[in-house]
């Protein structure tokens, strides 16, 4: 057996089936099979499982198909049947089943159907902290094997789950460090309206934001982003909305303002209003999301669900256009960053936990994107900005810090981010904060 990541700090876990689109199989039977699958684990450990009708349950079960926003798209009938996330906040513990499989419930058998109970027992092993095992008859063996529903949990899995949560009857708790979420999840009563929506794009274990937002129409913004409408932001003490090289100079964008850095540092007279340099941007614009200079010299601004293309200071006719005209999905409501990546001179677009690659010939996103941002190791999710500087390196920005990225090793050069103010604006640590950041 293999243990991965952390484990739950409590043993009385809750679970909830969160999908309404189950037209092929009976909802009741699905819940019954899922419940039986949980019981397999509770039978041999201290764990107990209680079904609730709430988005705040520890383990949420979904039936999804194709791309469903977690970086692991399903592939239709066959090969990948389901996947699950190891214990943690946000989507930690959740299990996703490929809706397009031929699921068999209530011990029905058929040659080319797949037993939901069998797959669920395996996926819930991941939800509890077990990874794949190479033991052929283990439940956590990665390839599907049929099992009778009254089977006994194989040794390999039984030992694994008891190391994590202790056997049903023994007093010891196991010696693995216990995961403690920063806040105790409120367990809502079952009267929670079923229509409560959840947006999870920006929740991360280290975020200080509340774990769930309940409104899809106003997705959460980064907690440290103070809405700065008229005051000039203090560049020694702020995050930035976008950073880009334009005409060989480095531009930082925050709120309505932009700072321009040349070879000798910050130009006098900056920050300036963005609208002074680029004309006819929306009047009510409070910030830009991302900016980059295309390889043909045009400058692209991403603002909300639209993007503008400028030739120098002037917008090209026919803009703004919606992000969907680039082939981005229509549920995308903002872009975090856009960069022409020095390593292959391709254009990359980042948003939330995903990123896309743009075919500069067709101005469309390439087919086998989006992909999960974890490939850009060390950068995390929901970045603020990214750009390629004169030194040919790629830089990622988040909150008030940034990372230099090693393109060949596909990871940040140093895990510890550095301060934007200190490196880019020569702020000394003592002078940060107050005023508009005089040096």
């Amino acid at each position, binding site marked *: *057996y293999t243990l991965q990541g952390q484990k739950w700090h409590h043993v009385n876990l809750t679970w909830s089936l969160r999908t309404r689109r189950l037209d092929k199989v009976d909802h009741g039977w699905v819940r019954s099979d899922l419940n039986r699958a949980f019981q397999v684990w509770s039978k041999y450990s201290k764990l107990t499982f209680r079904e609730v009708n709430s988005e705040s349950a520890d383990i949420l079960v979904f039936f999804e198909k194709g791309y469903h926003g977690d970086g692991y798209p399903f592939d239709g009938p066959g090969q990948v049947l389901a996947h699950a996330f190891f214990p943690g906040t946000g989507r930690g513990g959740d299990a996703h089943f490929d809706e397009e499989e031929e699921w068999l419930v209530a011990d029905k058998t058929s040659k080319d159907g797949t037993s939901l109970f069998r797959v669920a027992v395996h996926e819930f092993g991941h939800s509890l902290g077990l990874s794949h095992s190479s033991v052929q008859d283990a439940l956590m063996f*990665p*390839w599907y094997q049929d099992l009778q529903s009254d089977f006994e949990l194989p040794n390999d899995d039984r030992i694994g789950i008891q190391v994590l949560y202790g056997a049903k009857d023994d007093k010891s708790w196991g010696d693995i460090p216990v995961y403690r979420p920063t806040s105790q999840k409120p367990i809502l009563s079952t009267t929670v309206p079923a229509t409560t929506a959840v947006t999870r794009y920006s929740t991360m274990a280290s975020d200080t934001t509340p774990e769930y937002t309940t409104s899809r129409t106003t997705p959460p913004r980064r907690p440290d982003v103070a809405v700065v409408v008229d005051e000039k932001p203090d560049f020694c003490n702020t995050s930035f909305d976008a950073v880009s090289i334009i005409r060989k100079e480095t531009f930082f964008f925050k709120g309505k303002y932009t700072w321009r850095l040349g070879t000798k540092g910050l130009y006098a007279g900056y920050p300036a209003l963005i609208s002074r340099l680029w004309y006819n941007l929306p009047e009510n614009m409070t910030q830009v999301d991302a900016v980059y200079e295309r390889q043909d010299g045009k400058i692209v601004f991403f603002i909300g669900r639209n993007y503008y293309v400028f030739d120098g200071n002037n917008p090209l006719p026919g803009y703004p256009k919606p992000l969907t005209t680039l082939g981005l999905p229509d549920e995308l409501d903002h872009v975090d960053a856009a960069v022409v990546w020095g390593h292959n001179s391709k254009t990359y677009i980042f948003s939330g936990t995903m990123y896309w690659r743009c075919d500069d010939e067709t101005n469309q996103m390439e087919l086998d994107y989006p992909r999960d941002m974890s490939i850009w190791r060390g950068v995390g999710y929901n970045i603020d900005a990214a750009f390629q500087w004169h030194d040919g390196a790629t830089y990622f920005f988040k909150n008030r810090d940034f990372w230099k990225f090693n393109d060949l090793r596909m990871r940040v050069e140093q895990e510890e981010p550095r301060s934007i103010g200190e490196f880019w604006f020569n702020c000394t640590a003592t002078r940060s904060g107050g005023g508009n950041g005089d040096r």
Partner: protein
Amino acid sequence: RRRTESTPIYDDVHGYLMKFGYLPESDLETGNLRDGNQLQDALRTLQTFGNIPVTGKMDAATKELMKKPRCGVPDLSPAAGQRRTKR
């Protein structure tokens, strides 16, 4: 002795080995050229995990294994925190 035929390794095999953790996914973007050893090692690891003869080659048993329905979680994860306990 008759030389065994070597079968070419196609993209979908690369994709499978990356998707399930046998090859580093970071090569998706950098497209670093792999050397034969890296690929053979990956196949060997997959064959060991799948309890089929370990040949390091794309043989019939390996093709069969790759066709089987399975869980989408990678078998080997470079993430910190994965501990394999000796039995």
